[in-house]
């Protein structure tokens, strides 16, 4: 279903935006593949046919042909093979699927892949530079900030954003601004310690 394209598939995205502009309308129906490249609003393409979408994940562009209903989370996991982001509830109630979209933490299970086209998605797989772990990853290890590890990718993505948002100035702040990520093993105090540990290094840049 998926294949990786590193450079040029952005043109598909641009083309659609261009067509929309050229038609004098800002309505952009993303076309079903079988309906051909030029959308015709009157023809009402079968919405159950797969659509093309290009996602930029951890700096790489990926062209996918997927069901329009696919969320960013399912696109990552089932179509791109990046399974670090986890499904814990599929309804925005647990935070396990947290990724960064344009550098803001977001719930990938409630974000349509189509709506994320043209935006930068960062997942837990995109944090380490080779063998060098991101300071938050390192802090999670040192503070034993997980047990089963299932919520951990979401916690780490959320924690990085928490620091960058300026919400890591006190333990109370960290607790509140890390409350969108449920940890059933309840590693919470260690998560707070990890955020505290990593914050200065992250803010230093």
């Amino acid at each position, binding site marked *: 279903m998926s294949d990786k394209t590193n450079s040029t598939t952005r043109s598909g995205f641009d083309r659609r935006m261009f067509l929309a502009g050229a038609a004098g309308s800002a309505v952009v129906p993303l076309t079903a593949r079988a309906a051909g490249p030029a959308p015709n609003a009157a023809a009402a393409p079968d*919405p*159950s046919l797969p659509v093309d979408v290009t996602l930029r994940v951890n700096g790489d562009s990926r062209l996918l042909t997927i069901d329009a209903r696919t969320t960013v989370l399912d696109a990552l996991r089932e179509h791109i093979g990046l399974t670090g982001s986890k499904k814990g509830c599929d309804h925005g109630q647990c*935070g396990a699927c947290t990724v960064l979209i344009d550098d803001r933490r977001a*719930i990938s299970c*409630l974000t349509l892949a189509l709506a994320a086209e043209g935006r930068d998605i960062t997942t837990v797989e995109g944090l380490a530079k080779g063998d060098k772990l991101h300071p938050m990853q390192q802090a999670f290890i040192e503070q034993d900030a997980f047990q089963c590890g299932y919520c951990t990718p979401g916690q780490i993505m*959320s924690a990085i954003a928490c620091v960058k948002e300026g919400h890591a100035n006190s333990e109370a702040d960290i607790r*509140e601004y890390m409350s969108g990520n449920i940890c059933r093993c309840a590693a919470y105090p260690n998560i707070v310690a990890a955020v505290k540990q990593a914050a200065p290094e992250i803010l230093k840049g």
Partner: protein
Amino acid sequence: MRSFTYQRVTDPSAAIQALAMAVANNNPPTEATAQPLAGGTTLIDLMKLDVMRPRTVVDINPLASTWSAINLDGGNLRLGALARMSDVAANPEIQRNYPVIADSLRLAASPQLRNMATLGGNVLQRTRCTYFRDISYANCNKRDPGSGCAALDGFNRMHAVLGTSEQCIATYPGDFAQALIALDATVEITGKSGVRNIPFAQLHKPPDDSPQIETTLAPGELISAFTVSGRWPRSVYLKARDRQSYEFALSSAAVALDVQDGVISDARVALGGLATVPWRAREAEALIKGQKFDEALAQRVADAALAGAQGRRHNAFKIALGKRVVARALHQAATMEI
């Protein structure tokens, strides 16, 4: 989730045009076959549950470039409907001049969800009633008019005690709307025939005999902005809940006071978690104006605010809780340093 056609629009008229497809039928906006997608935290959620079944999803996020501004000019506040909850909550001017707005946003949902959810979408978020959200329950007048209400005699701890009807007791779950209704905000609505403005209090409809109709929006209309006149530095949002964060209110209160020389010249009280719609306690407010604050007054106001409340098996506690929350919020607002 049913299949849908996804459209991305880049200007408001295109959005209205795309949504207009749905205007032909008589459905309430929530049932319209074209739905606007902003943060998606309600729409995608309910589509996954098969509760909402649009055939066209109109992604209006690109409109954020024009519809997400936060303006505080000349003592009035204008909030673009596509501003994200987190951005508004973090705005120092809002925090200073409208703490009730900042706190109602800050205490809602989670940081991730607040990053996604927009103000306009937030005020339109739909009830958390299980019998509504789970389509395997046959009786829900909101989902299927005339089918009955499973919540009346069901597990209704989270349900409403104000503004209910025999057709529906589903709670309006939002926080921000309580701040808006308290501050007499105006809703700017953009539709086919241009822009219209209504008082926020006229946006939502209590369930009465037609709980499926939740707002006075016409199909195809979009909320484009909220405006608030005046500044309300002496205002609070107090939210009581089982856990400390990331939970809907059991009971909340938005309170704004204007105190001149120790006398309360203006007072606004709105209640969350208790009612089927954003809820303004106007009779209670009337008791305050012209008075000096004391705890006895707070108690009388709280009693008045909940005067018409009707409890059921699991939610009767909300009446007493609601009173204590109102009294506490009044106390906080009256004694806060500004």
